[in-house]
């Protein structure tokens, strides 16, 4: 899945809904629609410039991609959204290790409760987000006993940089 696809998907889907429930709605990316796209009048032979994600949309896409990784073990999308983000590995590598060991997760994952741009320039941006981690259980490895975990709520900061004409997540961290 390319960044262009992610951008189109994010714009098409809008942003995630906010709920006050303790059991968060997941920020999973829904499956792509198979219904035919509306016919566009052919006014030019040049393909339209794909819409780029804003910093806030990039963070939402990162959270959806992280949930996809939790659900399936596929970390390609989340890595594509932060190719130089070392702190992203804090969340991605454990998922990769768990699935590599034959384990899995049973959780609805991350949910953005609130999100706001704290600062933004042409080169970088900082987004604060109130995030809920849902309860669930982890099976650390094939045949291992499940490890149950409770819900968590965190204020998190996402730092982004503008590179290659798109916003990329460069740091994800907690504000304790």
């Amino acid at each position: 899945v390319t960044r262009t696809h992610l951008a189109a998907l994010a714009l098409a889907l809008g942003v995630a809904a906010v709920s006050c429930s303790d059991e968060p709605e997941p920020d999973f990316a829904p499956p792509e629609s198979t219904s035919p796209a509306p016919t566009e009048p052919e006014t030019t032979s040049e393909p339209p410039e794909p819409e780029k994600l804003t910093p806030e949309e990039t963070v939402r896409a990162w959270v959806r991609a992280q949930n996809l990784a939790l659900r399936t073990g596929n970390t390609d999308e989340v890595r594509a959204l932060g190719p130089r983000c070392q702190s992203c590995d804090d969340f991605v590598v454990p998922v990769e290790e768990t699935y590599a060991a034959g384990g899995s997760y049973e959780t609805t994952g991350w949910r953005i409760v609130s999100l706001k741009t704290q600062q933004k320039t042409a080169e970088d941006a900082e987004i604060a987000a109130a995030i809920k981690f849902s309860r669930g259980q982890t099976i650390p490895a094939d045949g291992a006993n499940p490890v149950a975990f409770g819900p968590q709520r965190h204020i998190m900061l996402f730092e982004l940089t503008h590179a290659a004409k798109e916003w990329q997540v460069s740091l994800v961290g907690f504000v304790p």
Partner: protein
Amino acid sequence: MRARVVATCLLFSSLAVVWPAAPADGNHCYWEKVQKFVFGNLVVAREQVCPPHSEGGSDGTTSPINDVGNLACNGFAGSLQVAAEEFCRALPETAPAVTGPLIAQALRRIPIPPAVLKVQPPNGRTLVNFATNFYTDREEFTRTVNLLGQRVELRITPARFTWKFDDGNAITTTKPGAPYPRLQVTHDYLEKGEVRPRVDTTYTADFRVNGGAWQPVPGSVTIPGESVDLEIVEASPTLVGYN
């Protein structure tokens, strides 16, 4: 309390907008690596630390921690229009307890260097049908980790040593061997050749939380050792005459 929280949020929400996450220079917030449990995994994550005198922090006359958590967190909570009580401090009833299985996971993530195998005779050569001596120098050690906001001490003990002689033979002992002449672990190679023996060390551990009673950590961790080159040669008796 509620009024105090709201007042804090109002006070710091505007400051949080320009909150930097700069390297530590005594005046700015910075990022520190901490251990956290996220979805059942113990991860090393980044956590923002803001000194009392930092930009956007407190006025320097009070600790940056108040009844509902870090003031920076309160500021962001205000900016995000969420309750600081919910997001700025792990609630005791929702935080998972520090249990043996969680500690076992922490133990598996503690970097433990592989044991160094020492062989006598030295210099990477020994003889066929000779009691080659093996030993290592692993000892009990302690590590302290911050787990779910609590100080957890781990007393890690090398419990078993599995000696792999690379000729199809292996033995497991509870002793780490000893240098000559206190022979504890020896092996006779029966044929000449080149082998790469190693010793794998299995650790068990005890833990205690916040200085409490020691408890055993379930399970164990085995750290494979590093192989060493060893050439096995034959020795022929030779009569030596004296003039």
